[in-house]
C-alpha cells in the first residue's frame, strides 16, 4: 500500500507540472481533472472520505466543466474553428 501511495504522489507531481507546461488549453484542463481524481484517491487513503467525495464532485466535475464553458466563451477550442472552416 505504501508503494501505491508513492506512485500516486509521483503522478500528482507529474500532473501538476504537466498542467502548466501543456501548450493546448484543452489538454491542460484534462490533466487538471486527472490531478483532482488522483487527489481524491489520496484523500481516501488518508482516511478522510468526506473530502474525497467533495474533491471528486467539485475538482474533477464542476470546476472542469466551468473551465470548458469558459474556453468556449473565449473561443479557445480548436475543434470548433475547424468545423467552421470546413
Amino acid at each position: 500500500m505504501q508503494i501505491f501511495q508513492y506512485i500516486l504522489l509521483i503522478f500528482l507531481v507529474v500532473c501538476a507540472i504537466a498542467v502548466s507546461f501543456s501548450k493546448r488549453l484543452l489538454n491542460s484542463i484534462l490533466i487538471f481533472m486527472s490531478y483532482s481524481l488522483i487527489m481524491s484517491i489520496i484523500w481516501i487513503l488518508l482516511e478522510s472520505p468526506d473530502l474525497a467525495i467533495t474533491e471528486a464532485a467539485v475538482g474533477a466535475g464542476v470546476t472542469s466543466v466551468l473551465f470548458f464553458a469558459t474556453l468556449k466563451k473565449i473561443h479557445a477550442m480548436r475543434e470548433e474553428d475547424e468545423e467552421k472552416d470546413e
Partner: protein
Amino acid sequence: MSRLIPEEEYGKKPAGAFRQWMSGIRDPYLGNVEVKARAGQDENEELLKEHQEEVVSVIRKVHDVANNSQYILFRKFYKAAALICCLTLTVMLLVTVAYLPPVGSADNPAHNEVAAKYIEDGLQDTGAVNIVTGMILDYRAFDTFGESNVLFIATCTVLILMRNDKKKGKGSAEEEEHRDSFYEPKADKILQTAALILVPFIILFGIYVILNGHLSPGGGFSGGAIIGAGLILYLNAFGFEKTERFFTAKTYKWVSFSALSFYCIAKSYSFYTGAHHLESGIPLGTAGNILSSGLILPLNICVGLVVACTMYAFFALFRKGGF
C-alpha cells in the same frame, strides 16, 4: 578556455533558453498557445487605428510632464509612498512572525484541551456519530454559516458579471445560447441515454450523503456538490427547456433565501454569545438514527440546498447569462 557562443546559438540550448526566458527576451508560449482572436474583430482596421490614435493622444495629454511640473512631484510622491507602504507591511509581518511559537512545540496554543474535548464529548453534546459534522454544524456552526454566505455572494458576483438581461435582438440571452451551443451535437443519443440512467442515481446519492451527514462521511457541502454536478449533467444532455421547468431564477432566489435565513435564525446567536452554547430544546434522540442530533440534520439540508443551487447557477450563468 571557454569561448563565447553567439546569442542565437546559445538560445537553442536549454540553459540558454531558460536564461532568455528569465530576462524576458523570449516567451516560449508566444504564438504557441492556441488562443485565437475572435472572428470578425479585425475587419475594421481603420476604425481600430483611429481608436488607437485616440488612446495615444489622451495618454499624451494626461501625462504631459514637460508642461505640468506637478506631475513630476506626484510621480515622486507615488514612488515614495509605494516604497513606504511595502516596507511598513513587510516589517509588520516580520515582527508578527517573530512572535509566533516555534513549530512542533508541545505547549503551542493549538495543542489545548479543545480538540480532546471535541473527540471525547462530541457524541454526548451533539448526538452526531460523525465527529466532523458535529464540529462544523454544532460547535462551530457560525463558521459554516459564513461559508454558506460566501457561496451566495459568489453567485451574486457571477450574476453581476455574466447577467444578460436583453430579451430580444442581437446579444439577447436566447441568441447567446444558440450561438454558444451551435456547434454542439444537439439531442445526442449517447449522452442522453447515459444521463437518463446516471442522473437519478447521482441525485439520490447526493440526497443520501446530505441526510446521513451526521452518521457517515459527507455532509451538506459534499452532497450539495454531487447534486449540482448531477443537475449540470442533466442540463448538458437535455438542454435548458427541460431544466427550466423546475429550476429558474425564481426557484434559486427562494431556495437560497429560505435556506440561508433558516440557518441564520437557527445559529446566528453565536455572534452574540460567542462560542457558548444555547440549549436548543430539541431532543438529541438516539445516536445513529436518521432523526437524531437536533438541528444538525436541518442545517445539513440547508447547506446542501445552497451548494447545489450555487453549482447549477454558476454553470447556467456561464452558458447563457441567466437561468
